[in-house]
Every structure is written in C-alpha cells, then in structure tokens.
C-alpha cells in the first residue's frame, strides 16, 4: 500500500475532523478509555509498590546463627567455614558476643545494667540465602552443623509473608488482565456503535473507489486520538495521587526495611504505560470494528 505523503496528511486531517464532528461519540469512547486506564493505572501503582515491598523484605530476610558458649576460637572458625560450604548462601557476617551486647544496649538506649563481665549473650553469624525463599531450607541445614546453639529466623512468619505477597501479585495480575479485556470490550462496543452508523459511509466510500486502507487509516488514527484523549485524565490523577501518597507515607518509612518506589522513574513508567495502553486500546478497537464492514 504505497501511499503518497500528502495522502497520509489527508488521513491525519480527516481523523482530526472526524473526532471533532462526532464530538459526542468521541467523548463517550474517550470516557470509556479514561475509566479503564484510571483503574488500571491505580492498580499498577499498587501492584508495583507491593512488589517493591516484597523485594525489599526478601532482601532483608536474615538468619541469625547463635554459637555454643563452649566453642573456642578454632571451633568458631571451623563453623564459619562449614556455614560457607552450605549451598545457597549469599552473605555471612560474624558478630562477637561483645558486639551483640553493644547492639542490644544501643537498641535499649543504654539503660541496662549489663557489662562485659557478665555478658550473657552468645556470638552470632548473620547469614542470608541467595534466594530469600530458600531461607528456611538454609537455616535447617545450618542447624545440623556442630557448635550451633540455635538458629533464628522469621520461620512461619516469613513463609506466610511470602505466600501472601505471591498471592497478592497473582491476583493483581489477574485483575489487570480482566480489566484490560473489559476495557477492550467496552471500547470496541462504543466504536462499533459509531461504525454501524458509518456503515453506509464505508459502503459509499468503496463505491467511489476507495481502497480498504484508504478507509481504514483515518479510523485507526481516530482511535489513536481517542486513546490519547482518554489517557490524559488518568495520567494527571495517577501522578497527583502518587506524589501525595509518597509524601504522606515515605517519612514514616525512613529506616524501615522497605520503601515505596521513588517518584522518578516510577511515574514516567506508569504514565508511559497508561498512554501506550490508551493508544493500543483505541487502535485495536477501531481496527476490529472497521474490519467487519470492509469485507464487502
């Protein structure tokens, strides 16, 4: 379908004119796009942040290995080596019982009647699994090693957290897909109403010698404009919403194990996604609805 540039220009002008002259139908279609993209945008916002929280938490799942009081330096070095040999280990940090005491005192603001002389604490190794979901397995293996007193980690809690996050992610993904399909159905229906009204026009155009592409391109362009129009409000709302949310919540999260996604590049990503989806929905909708009537 080789086409002259001026014909493409003509299609652009026609598609603009058409949006304007059918302002009511254009408004209805763009509104359908707006509602959908708003829902999807807010959803993506929540999901991506849940993901971030999950990732942050996963990164911070630590196993604390307490060393037997009876173990001497040699045995501790041997234990460190043994732990390092366990498969799936990412990092290991040693902390003497004096350091443990300092941490404890710091946590309680130095108001404890404990000194180095009667330090009841044990030396510890802080260990992380390279795959956070394998933390439990790693912990059990370390527990088998000689000279470990006990192994502590979130145990049941971590499992529950992970299964919750996994569930949330899957449900979120499912919902987004369902929303998308609803939107496409909604929009192709809206456009179909327009097209049915234009069915006669399409027939006339064919009788005057227009090729299928000549008819189709302005409709597809029109779909693009409607998609873009429909994306404006969701982009504004999602941006304002997230900036406010971020400024409200983020101060409380300083020093916590997890954070929200920073404003950039997150907002650019979400808004680009909304815009692209708007365009895609518009193009798809008009393509599908013209298709039927072009087979004359």
């Amino acid at each position, binding site marked *: 379908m080789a086409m002259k540039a001026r014909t493409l220009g003509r299609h652009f002008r026609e598609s603009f004119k058409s949006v304007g002259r059918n302002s009511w139908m254009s408004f209805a279609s763009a509104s359908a796009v707006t509602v959908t993209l708003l829902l999807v945008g807010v959803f993506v916002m929540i999901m991506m942040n849940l993901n971030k929280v999950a990732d942050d938490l996963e990164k911070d799942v630590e196993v604390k290995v307490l060393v037997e009081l009876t173990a001497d330096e040699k045995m501790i070095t041997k234990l460190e080596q043994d732990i390092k040999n366990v498969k799936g280990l990412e990092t290991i940090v040693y902390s003497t019982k004096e350091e443990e005491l300092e941490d404890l005192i710091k946590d309680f603001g130095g108001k404890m009647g404990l000194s180095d002389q009667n330090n009841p604490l044990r030396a510890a190794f802080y260990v992380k699994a390279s795959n956070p979901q394998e933390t439990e397995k790693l912990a059990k293996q370390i527990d088998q090693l000689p000279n470990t007193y006990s192994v502590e980690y979130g145990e049941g809690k971590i499992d529950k957290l992970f299964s919750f996050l996994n569930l949330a992610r899957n449900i979120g993904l499912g919902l987004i897909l369902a929303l998308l399909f609803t939107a496409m159905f909604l929009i192709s229906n809206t456009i179909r109403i327009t097209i049915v009204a234009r069915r006669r026009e399409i027939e006339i*155009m064919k*009788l005057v*010698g227009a090729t299928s592409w000549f008819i189709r391109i302005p409709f597809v362009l029109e779909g693009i404009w409607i998609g873009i129009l429909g994306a404006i409000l969701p982009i504004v709302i999602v941006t304002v919403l997230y900036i406010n949310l971020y400024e409200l919540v983020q101060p409380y999260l300083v020093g916590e194990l997890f954070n929200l996604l920073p404003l950039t590049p997150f907002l650019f990503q979400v808004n680009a996604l909304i815009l692209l989806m708007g365009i895609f929905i518009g193009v798809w909708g008009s393509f599908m609805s013209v298709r039927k009537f072009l087979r004359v």
Partner: protein
Amino acid sequence: MISMKNVYKKYPNGIVAANGLNVEIMQGEFVYVVGPSGAGKSTFIKMMYREERPTSGDIFINDINLATLKSKRVPYLRRQIGVVFQDFKLLPRLNVYENVAFALEVIEESPKVIRKRVMDVLELVGLKHKARMFPTELSGGEQQRVSIARSIVNTPKVIIADEPTGNLDPETSWEIMKVFQEVNNRGTTIIMATHNKEIVNTIKHRVIAVEGGLIVRDEAGGDYGYES
C-alpha cells in the same frame, strides 16, 4: 468500450435478473436503459461497476473482465467509472466540496488540482455557491447534482446512472439532463436507467429495453415505448 457476453445473473433467492444479456456500447454513446419495474435494469447497471457479480458470462470495460476481476482491484475499476445513484449516496459528514473532492483524494491527486477541478465541476452543476453546505442542507435536486459532480470530477470515460431523475421534479430533471448532455458532448459514454418517458422521447438517444432479464429492444434514437 463496454460489452456483455451471455451475462446471466441469479440472485441467492433464486430470482434470475439477467437471463443472457448481449450488448456492445461504444465510447461516447448515450444509452437509455428502460423497462418495467423489476425488469433487471438496476442489476444490469450494478454489474457494470461490480456491485453485483454475474453468475456466468463476461463483462468487459476497456479489456478489463469484471466477471473475473479480483475484489482487491475493484476500487481501481470504480475510479474509471463515474456512478450516479438514485439515492445520491453522499457522505453525510462531509460538505459539498469535500464530497466531490473525495473522488480525487482516493486517487491521490494533489490539493491544487483537487481545488481547481472540484470548483470547476461545481460550477458546471451550478452549486459553486453552496460548496460549504452539508448534504442535509440541500434539496434533492441539489444533492443529485453533487452526486453527478462527484461522478464526473475525475473525468471518467464512462458514467453510469441508475434513475438519476427518479426522485426529482420535472424542472430539476431537465437541468440534470443538461449536465449529462454537456458531459456526453465532451466524449464521455453515458448509460442511464430511467422511467422518465418525456426525457427519453425528447432528448433522443439509443434505447435499450429490458424485460425479464432480457434485452427485448435496442434501437438508436428509439422511444420510451411504455405507458408511464
């Protein structure tokens, strides 16, 4: 030149609307197609721009065989033929100027040429001053003239019209015939199905009478031949 050879058309409902048509029409001829209602005039006309496809037989327009022409090529055929419809078939959302220009946009003519040619034909049909109006703002006769302007704007060699005066009062009909006559004088073939006895009997041309899907009479400078 247009020719039909043993053209037969049976609609899906079993009605035979063309029952062995044989005809030749030379370049520059003016031909009336007459006959009672349901005789097959519209079918005869529609097969010439491939709105309908013959069930068997061949139809040639300048060596293109419409019976075997691929659907993809049909738009290119239609650009060589100007069609005037009884119900005008104007695009409702385009104004007069844009409706006529559409036939030239389709062939990717330059905007300069489009402007000149559209204004020229609007002048010819006497609607230059209504170029910015929309079809709904026009009378039936004016709409028909727009439809004629669109059919001649890309200077086709053939114009096919199915009852172009069917919906018009006598006075407007005569005006439209003037336009057709003018176009025919420039060498364009005109094929026109009509029920208008006065016109056929006054502006004498070749008359092809169709009945029951058959050509029953074909005479140069003939009469309408039916009571109307």
